[in-house]
């Protein structure tokens, strides 16, 4: 018989968390600290979701999504995790753009952007100032129908170079496009612009290990290799509510479920259409997921070094920025994340992770041979592109590998292999979930603004507050004692 990954768990929990992305991990931690009995289930053999890493022969460690996050992470990590973990967050100062319209080095903050927009791009200082201030003032409940593209035209008419500078890095970071609501750009961009781009020194592996230690200290029961197949519901005094989950074929009872799976997976697969009104199902089906990603991982042989060419290098041969071109199968737009020895002090190693935005459909319909060929092309093109900045890099590479939207789907089970959750409308479905099905909550990359490391962590806390309120009320009501003894 197969190993029982659920061996020793209890019959009943206050809350079952499905998935261990940063949203799921943070919710589990916050709710355990509130005194609730938490079971965290992850189908993969490693925690972290997309905040992950893998090791390869030759001593290589590759990080998937450690390219950079806003300074707000320091505060969120300190509050919802620990001061010790927050202390490893450091700034990445070398952000670089290289494309046919401009080349520039920046610390990617408001001060430096203002300076370069005025001096290099010759935009009136007053316009830049107004743009930043207006963006800061945006609220997600404003209900403003303007798109990011329209907003750019308003402040920087005809300036495709300025628009590229503003849009390209954000499109890489969250898969958003010029057609998405301006508010989604405003919030994410303002977060970065406040003080620049930050990273976690030590790597994703150290971060997730420290988080795991913290979860255990706070009493969270953690199980990996456990796939949740179904959310169980029952109707009690006229109201449908969550009563448990089926995971690895076994029923586990609980008062509430927090799903960190994609919102569409949560509604349409895990809970199932039968648990919702037709209107809500239609809304969930209409939610568009964001694009996906390809990555190329290049490991530099032990003992070899690379020159410092920047930490995050946004490159493209496209004449102007285009949301369509960015995700094209044959795009020339790539971000190089350069990992120098500083990333993991003491290891003295270099790696390069090349990120490319991509469409799931382009990759999902390939034959096995075609798929292998396209992956090899991706690797070859990436190395050739890198040779422009580091001419002898090819001879230093002793590991090369590519990931595609199919890889992301395989490891995270996300709908259509999405890297960056859903478009804006997904947030409403996520937030409405508990009012549709009592005891069911969702936290995870959704709505563009609740995405990325910072967005998912903060959204995890926002939803945890609602869950805590629900659980506290349940525990107080004497008639609502758990149905299972």
């Amino acid at each position, binding site marked *: 018989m197969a190993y029982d990954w659920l061996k020793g768990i209890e019959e009943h929990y206050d809350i079952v968390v499905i998935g261990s992305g940063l949203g799921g991990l943070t919710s589990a931690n916050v709710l355990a600290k509130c005194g609730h009995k938490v079971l965290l289930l992850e189908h993969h053999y490693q925690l972290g979701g997309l905040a992950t890493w893998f090791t390869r022969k030759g001593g290589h460690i590759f990080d998937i999504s450690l390219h950079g996050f806003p300074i707000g992470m320091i505060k969120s990590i300190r509050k919802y995790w620990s001061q010790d973990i927050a202390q490893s967050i450091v700034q990445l100062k070398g952000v670089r753009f290289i494309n046919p319209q401009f080349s520039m080095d920046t610390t990617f903050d408001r001060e430096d952007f203002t300076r370069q927009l005025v001096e290099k791009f010759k935009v009136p200082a007053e316009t830049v100032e107004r743009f930043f201030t207006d963006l800061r003032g945006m609220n997600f409940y404003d209900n403003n129908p303007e798109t990011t593209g329209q907003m750019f035209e308003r402040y920087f008419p005809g300036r495709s170079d300025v628009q590229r500078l503003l849009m390209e890095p954000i499109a890489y970071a969250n898969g958003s496009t010029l057609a998405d609501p301006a508010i989604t750009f405003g919030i994410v961009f303002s977060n970065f612009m406040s003080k620049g781009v930050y990273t976690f020194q030590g790597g994703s592996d150290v971060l997730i290990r420290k988080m795991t230690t913290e979860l255990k200290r706070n009493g969270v029961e953690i199980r990996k290799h456990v796939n949740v197949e179904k959310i169980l519901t029952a109707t009690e005094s006229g109201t449908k509510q969550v009563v448990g989950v089926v995971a690895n074929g076994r029923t586990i009872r609980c008062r509430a479920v927090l799903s960190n799976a994609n919102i569409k997976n949560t509604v349409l697969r895990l809970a199932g259409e039968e648990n919702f009104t037709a209107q809500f199902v239609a809304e969930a089906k209409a939610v568009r997921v964001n694009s996906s990603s390809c990555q190329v991982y290049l490991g530099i042989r032990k003992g070899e070094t690379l020159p410092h060419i920047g930490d995050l290098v946004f490159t493209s041969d496209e004449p102007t920025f285009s949301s369509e071109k960015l995700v094209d199968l044959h795009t020339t737009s790539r971000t190089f994340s350069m990992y120098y020895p500083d990333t993991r002090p003491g290891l003295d190693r270099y790696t390069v992770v090349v990120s490319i935005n991509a469409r799931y459909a382009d990759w999902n319909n390939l034959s096995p041979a075609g798929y292998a060929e396209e992956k090899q092309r991706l690797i070859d093109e990436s190395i050739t592109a890198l040779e422009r900045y580091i001419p002898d890099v090819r001879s230093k590479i002793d590991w090369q590998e590519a990931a595609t939207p199919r890889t992301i789907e395989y490891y995270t089970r996300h709908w259509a292999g999405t890297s960056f959750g859903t478009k804006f409308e997904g947030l409403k479905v996520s937030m409405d979930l508990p009012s549709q099905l009592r005891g069911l909550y969702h936290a995870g990359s959704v709505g563009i603004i609740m995405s990325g490391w910072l967005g998912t962590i903060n959204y995890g806390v926002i939803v945890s507050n609602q869950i*805590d309120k629900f659980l506290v009320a349940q525990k107080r009501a004497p008639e609502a004692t758990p149905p299972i003894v």
Partner: protein
Amino acid sequence: MTKEDCQKLVIDIISDIAPDEDLSAIKPEIRLRDQLQLDSMDFLDIVMELRKRHGIEVPEADYSHLASLESCAEYLTPKFPTKA
């Protein structure tokens, strides 16, 4: 529970949420946001701590009552259980 006691409990919470802030000179009648670096997540933390430490539930519609120390005390004091 007096209003002064209540203000003190709120300050205790804020000092844990924002340990780097100097809370000794907060003016009770002025909005907390105007004196301290508090964002909407910090206010959410205050709500969660009130529930955790004191069993007080602040509905979302009432979040505006948490604007200043004075308005906090006004709103929260009656919510504390009266002890003999």
